[in-house]
């Protein structure tokens, strides 16, 4: 390993499966100057709350923080589209000197009148934390004045990583919960937490639950509505997808309303099926037929999916894949999903994994797999090369790293425009991986081209 690629201070954030007990350092502040792929607290809050489509999302700060989140996510709505607009108080120098509270108030006044949202989220950014605007007070005042919940999201960017932003978002949403009556909610009911309806994924999942006879009270937050969140404490069970984003909210609800939660994943075959069975088991006491209905559903879906998958698998068998994702929970599902395609995971990294997450990753990955926390471009490119990866899975920032090295890439973050969840999503996923790995273009990129040329030469010499 080249000495310059990995900084001494970061050595304990990298581990190889099978090489002793995993003791990875995580949840650490990013190292200065390390070109982290991580975002900030604000980003975490924004990701979680963004899909609530009938709320106003006002970013209190200078323009950048808002503009970089302008319509970059693929979270779809079946109704209102207010979430796709990017609102900012666009703080100017005078606001920074004299305080931005007045401007925030005026902005809320203007925007709430203009768009009549069902609620407003006000995000604080770094600079607001420094100049000390009292968001809480402004929001309280505007709640009274406008008659809708105006909720502060304490998401100053420097106060931690993206993960801290998830908590801030959950705290803001928790204030909405319990504000509306729960009459008419079925005893067989759930809330879907931690799915953001990227490319309409939540619609796929809801359909499964509807077929099982389970009512979905609120989507938190994909295709989300303020009113649904307001009454979601009437549901019998919370399903939490993704490790970081909404787990805190589920815990708060368990404590306050006694609603249990299950952790689930809709990615890949086993995890999707397991998630449905978990729900079926949970309700089997009050509806004994549900298990059978669920089995039937899964069977039908698999009958369609498996033969198709087999076709892709033929091509993909033995190819190597690396991934770098935001939350590591997604990585568990991906590792398993890739097994169905006959592919081997050789590197798994995450921006915000926890010690438990990494321990589990160590369990489910093959020996020698690199596990890495809070990586940067140089480290990622180093391992892509070392492991001679065929496909890399990540987000927009990782894409050019793979492409520069002549490696296929699959976008698997909030900006993707393909639905990858559910059984049909697994097929989309296979198709996407297939088109990433099998394109003829890879033979022309220097790294492969040179190797192919060398192999040919050797063959001639032999």
């Amino acid at each position, binding site marked *: 390993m080249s000495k*310059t690629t990995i*900084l001494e*201070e970061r050595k304990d954030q990298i581990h190889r499966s099978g090489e002793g007990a995993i003791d990875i350092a995580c949840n650490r502040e*990013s*190292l*200065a*100057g*390390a*070109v*982290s792929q*991580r*975002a*900030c*607290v604000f*980003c975490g809050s924004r990701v979680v709350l963004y899909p609530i489509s009938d709320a106003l999302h*006002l970013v209190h700060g*200078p*323009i*950048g*923080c808002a*503009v*970089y*989140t*302008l*319509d*970059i996510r693929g979270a779809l709505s079946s109704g209102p589209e207010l979430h796709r*607009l*990017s*609102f*900012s108080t*666009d*703080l*100017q*120098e005078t606001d*920074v000197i004299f305080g931005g509270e007045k*401007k925030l108030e005026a*902005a809320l006044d*203007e925007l709430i009148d203009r768009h009549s949202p069902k609620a407003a989220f006000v995000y604080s950014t*770094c*600079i607001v*934390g*420094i100049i000390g605007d009292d968001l809480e007070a402004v929001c309280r005042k505007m709640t009274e004045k406008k008659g809708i919940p105006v909720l502060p999201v304490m998401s100053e*960017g*420097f106060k*931690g990583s993206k993960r801290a932003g998830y908590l801030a978002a959950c705290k803001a949403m928790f204030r909405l919960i319990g504000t509306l009556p729960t009459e008419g909610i079925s005893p067989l009911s759930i809330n879907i937490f931690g799915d953001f309806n990227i490319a309409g994924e939540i619609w796929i999942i809801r359909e499964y639950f509807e077929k099982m006879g389970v009512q979905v009270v609120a989507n938190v937050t994909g295709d989300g509505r303020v009113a649904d969140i307001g009454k979601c404490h009437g549901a019998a069970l919370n399903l939490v997808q993704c490790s970081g984003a909404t787990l805190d909210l589920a815990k708060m609800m368990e404590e306050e309303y006694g609603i249990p939660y299950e952790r689930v994943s809709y990615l890949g075959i086993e995890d999707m099926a397991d998630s449905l069975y978990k729900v079926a088991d949970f309700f089997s006491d009050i509806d004994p037929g549900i298990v059978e209905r669920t089995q039937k559903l899964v069977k039908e879906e698999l009958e369609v999916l498996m033969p198709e998958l087999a076709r892709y698998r033929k091509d993909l068998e033995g190819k190597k894949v690396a991934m770098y994702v935001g939350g590591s929970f997604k990585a568990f599902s991906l590792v398993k999903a890739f097994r169905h395609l006959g592919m081997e995971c050789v590197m798994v990294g995450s921006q915000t994994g926890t010690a438990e997450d990494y321990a589990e990753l160590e369990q489910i990955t093959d020996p020698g797999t690199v596990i890495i926390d809070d990586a940067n*471009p*140089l480290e990622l*490119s180093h391992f*892509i*090369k070392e492991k001679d990866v065929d496909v890399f899975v990540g987000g*927009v*920032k990782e*894409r*050019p*790293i793979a*492409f*520069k*090295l002549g490696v296929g890439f699959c976008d698997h973050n909030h900006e993707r425009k393909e639905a990858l969840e559910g059984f049909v999503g697994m097929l989309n996923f296979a198709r996407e991986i297939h088109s990433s790995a099998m394109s003829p273009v890879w033979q022309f990129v*220097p*790294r492969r081209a040179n190797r192919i040329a060398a192999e040919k030469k050797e063959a001639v010499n032999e």
Partner: protein
Amino acid sequence: MSKVKTKKTVKPNFVSTTNACKLCTPLGASLAFRGIEGAIPFLHGSQGCATYMRRYIISHFREPVDIASSALGEKNAIYGGGPNLKKGMLNVMKKYEPAVIGVATTCLTETIGDDVPMNLKEFKSEFGDLDLPDLVEVSTPSYSGTHIDGWHGAVRSVMEQLCVSKAEDTGRVNILPNMVSCEDVRHLHDICRDFDIEGTILPDISETLDGPALEDYVKIPSGGTPVSEIKEMSGARGTIEFGRCLPPQTGGTSLEKTFGVKNHRIGLPIGLRESDRFFETMEDISGNPMPKRYELERGRLIDAYVDGHKYVFGKRAVVYGEEDLVTGLCAFLSEIGVDVVLAGSGARKRGMEDAIAAVTDGVARMAPEVREGVDFYDISEEAESLRPDLLIGHSKGYRYAKAWNIPLIRVGFPIHDRFGGQRVLHLGYKGALNLFDTIVNAVIEKKQADSSIGYGYI
């Protein structure tokens, strides 16, 4: 033709911003630093800003964009970010081995009052025994300016901090091209070569942000303006800086003031007449006549203008984006008979109205509504009644073009929903021809799409 009268801006802006038509200051600075050979941009602030900007820039250029950050946390925000800045620079030096570190501040570090020049001075004396890269700093609070201020600020800082003594006569020409595309910069290189004069283009993103596929991941891409050339810019025959809406103090003016290198400030050479100005200036400085090739390009452009004039005449366009890009586009559109009904920019107090009046004088049939400090909400409010046929600007106008069912002509930055944004040619006769073809074809395509008959011959 009578002089076009300028209209006074009527509407006040709203308190809040909806879908901003500008980006933040350090983004412009980071882009400019990326155009210096061996340089790495370094944002002094919290991690989020750098990550967001990287993501945004990557989507346009589809290239790796490594921007370091001092990754300030809560404690640093309270006690000052100096130590993190130094530590961060050491780490960057270790890993990237840069020739230059371009440090730009962010809102956070400006507000807590970090004294970056002093920090850098301390850094130099503390670590003087190491082989230090050149350090350049620029102050880029986003609450007073846009990404364009960041760009110009960084160029000026590079100029002032790296070019510190009078060089011998190099016989070169300096070009400060403003925030244009990689293809534009490549075209400028060609023009210099054909004029038989060596050009120093600062910054030069042509290779650093549009590089080839490589065997290996390079830490800092090759290309960019060489520092050795920057240090000799004081010995050039003249400087051409593009922009009619520039701040009063720029790299060009300070070079003129300090070293007497004559500064030629002209508009972005977009369209026939603004390109003429550029080529005349090149003739002036090089002492050579315009090469035949460009005469032909010019002639071909006029020929195309003639061939296509009817398709576009009287079409109404809304143009938005960076102040100088918008001004250049207005110059071009007025030549081809497109009426610009609204010209908007997120920047404030840049004299865009006067600049547009100057570049459209004598050809435009009407003065556009010129609006500074606007966002897309403002633009759409006004455009509704202006009934445009064309929207011209970057990708973020797409939702409006879709709503109004009119074509969006993608120019400038960012282009996030099309391929090849970095390869759009805007400048020179060739750039005008490219824009002209694109616009005429968009009009034809729309006509075809709207027609129930489906003519294959238009």
